[in-house]
C-alpha cells in the first residue's frame, strides 16, 4: 500500500516538472510573439476535442489533436496577417469550442468522471504513457529553442525584419503554434483543459516582469512553472483539493508577486539589474 502511494506520487512529481517545463516555455514564445489568444483558442479546442472523443468512444487524445489542428489552420493564417485583430474571431471560436464541449458533455452516457477530470485535471492519476508524451513534447520544445535560439529571437522581435534577413520566419511561426497545440494536448489531462491556459501564460508573464533577456525569461519562466506545479501538487495533496486548481492558484499568486517586485516598476531593482551579461 505504501509502495503504491509512493509510485503514483512519483509519477505526479515528474508530471509536474514536465508540465512546468513544457507549458512555461511555450508560454514564453506565445506571449512574446503577442499571440496569447491563440493559446486560449487552442486549449479550448483541445478540451472540446477530448470530450468529443469520449462521447464517440475514440481516444480523446487523437480527437484533441484533430480539433487543435482545425483551430490552428483557421487562426494561424489569420493571425499571420499584419492587420489582424484577434478579439472577434477568437471570441467566436472560443465560445464555440466551449459550447461544443458542453454539448458533448451532456451526451456522455453514464458517469462523467473521465470528462470532468479532463476539465479540472488530475495529475495524481497520470500513467506512464501520459508521462512519456509529456516528456516528448517538452523535449521537442527544448530542442526547438536550443537549436533555433537566435532565429527565434528575430521572429519575436519583428517578423518582417526576420523575413528581410532571409530567416525562415514562417516556419518558425508555425512551429511555435504547432508546439503550442502539442504541449496543451499532452498536458490537458493532468492540469485540466480549462486551466491549462493560465499555466501557459502566468509563468511567462511573471518572468517578463522580472528579466530583460530572452534566455533569462526562459529560465525564470521554467523555474516559476515547475515551482507552481510542485507547490500546487504538494498543497493539493496536503489539503485534498483539486491539483490543477491549486497549480493555477499558486502561479497566479507568483504573477502578482512578480508585478509587485518587478524591477521594471522600480522595486528590488538592484537584485535583477543587468550588468555585463550577454
Amino acid at each position: 500500500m505504501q509502495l503504491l502511494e509512493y509510485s503514483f506520487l512519483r509519477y505526479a512529481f515528474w508530471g509536474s516538472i514536465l508540465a512546468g517545463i513544457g507549458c512555461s516555455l511555450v508560454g514564453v514564445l506565445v506571449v512574446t510573439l503577442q499571440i496569447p489568444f491563440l493559446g486560449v483558442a487552442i486549449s479550448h479546442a483541445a478540451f472540446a476535442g477530448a470530450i468529443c472523443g469520449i462521447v464517440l468512444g475514440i481516444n480523446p487524445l487523437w480527437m484533441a489533436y484533430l480539433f487543435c489542428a482545425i483551430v490552428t489552420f483557421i487562426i494561424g493564417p489569420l493571425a499571420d496577417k499584419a492587420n489582424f485583430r484577434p478579439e472577434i474571431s477568437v471570441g467566436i471560436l472560443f465560445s464555440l469550442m466551449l459550447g461544443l464541449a458542453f454539448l458533448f458533455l451532456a451526451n456522455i452516457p453514464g458517469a462523467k468522471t473521465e470528462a470532468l477530470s479532463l476539465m479540472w485535471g488530475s495529475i495524481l492519476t497520470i500513467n506512464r504513457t501520459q508521462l512519456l508524451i509529456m516528456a516528448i513534447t517538452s523535449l521537442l520544445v527544448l530542442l526547438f529553442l536550443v537549436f533555433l535560439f537566435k532565429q527565434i529571437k528575430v521572429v519575436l522581435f519583428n517578423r518582417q525584419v526576420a523575413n528581410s534577413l532571409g530567416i525562415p520566419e514562417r516556419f518558425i511561426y508555425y512551429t511555435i503554434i504547432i508546439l503550442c497545440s502539442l504541449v496543451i494536448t499532452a498536458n490537458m489531462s493532468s492540469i485540466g483543459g480549462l486551466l491549462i491556459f493560465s499555466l501557459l501564460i502566468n509563468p511567462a508573464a511573471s518572468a517578463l516582469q522580472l528579466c530583460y533577456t530572452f534566455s533569462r525569461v526562459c529560465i525564470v519562466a521554467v523555474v516559476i512553472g515547475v515551482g507552481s506545479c510542485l507547490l500546487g501538487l504538494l498543497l493539493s495533496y496536503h489539503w485534498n483539493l483539486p491539483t490543477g486548481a491549486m497549480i493555477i492558484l499558486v502561479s497566479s499568486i507568483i504573477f502578482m508577486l512578480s508585478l509587485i517586485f518587478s524591477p521594471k516598476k522600480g522595486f528590488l531593482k538592484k537584485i535583477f539589474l543587468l550588468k555585463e551579461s550577454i
Partner: protein
Amino acid sequence: MNYSTSEAVIVLDSVNVEYGYHQALHQVSLCVLANSCVTIAGPNGAGKTTLLASILGLCQIRTGLVKVLGRDLRDSPKFIRKHTGYVPQNVGIDPQIPLLVWDVISFGRLAHSSLFHNFSKKDKETIEEAAELVGIRHLLNRPFGYLSAGEQRKVALARVLAQQPKLLLLDEPLANLDLPAQAMLLELIDKIKSEKELTILLVSHDLTLLPKSCNQIVLMKKGRVILSASKEVALREDVLSNLYDCPVKVVPYKQRGAIFVEGKS
C-alpha cells in the same frame, strides 16, 4: 530594356504591386547603378515603402521584373536578402520584449550564418564596430524596448551595418533623430558609401537634408515613378510643386538649398 545590367545593382522593369484592390505600384521601372546613393521622395502613400519592399520581395509582385545585385528576385531571394540591409520605416516593438540592444544588432549577422550557428569572435567584433560607428556603444547592454524612438532608429542602423551588406535600403532614416544625429547619419552614409562600396537607397521627406554623395533623386507620386534624375534636375521649384501639388520654394544655400512649402495663399 537597354540598361547595361552588369553595372546596375537594382533593375525594376514595369513592376506592378497590388494590395487587395489598391494598386500601390504602377508599371514602375527604375535603374540604380553600383555605388550610387539614391533618395526617393514623394507624398505620403506614393508607394515609397512598397518600392523598397518589392526590391526584397517582401510584397506580392503581380507582374514585372526585379533584378537585384545581378540576380532575378524570383530565382534567388535568399541571396538578395543576405546582401541587402533593410531598415523598415517604423517597427512597432513591445517595450516588454526581452531583448538587449546587443541582441538586436546581432540579428544583422544572422543573414550570413546558417541555422544552428554560433557567433564567432569576428561576428562579435563586427557587432561592436557597428555600434561604435553609430555612436551607441554605451547602449549595448540596455533593454531595446525601453529606448527612445531615435535610439531605436540608431540601433536599426547598426543592425544593418553589422550585416555588412552590398545594398542598403533605408526607409526614412532621419525620422525621430535629433539635429546632430541627423547630421551624423548623413555623414555616416557618405562615409560608409565611400569606404565599403555600398549602394544606398533611402526614402526621405526632407529634401534639404540629403547625403552629399546622393547622386540620384527618384520622385514618386500615386504609385508611379514620375522622375529619376540628378539633384539639379529634380530639386527645382516647378518639379517639386507638381510633385506635391502645392507651391514649393527652393532657396539656394551653399551648395544645397532649403526647400519648403510656400503656402497656398
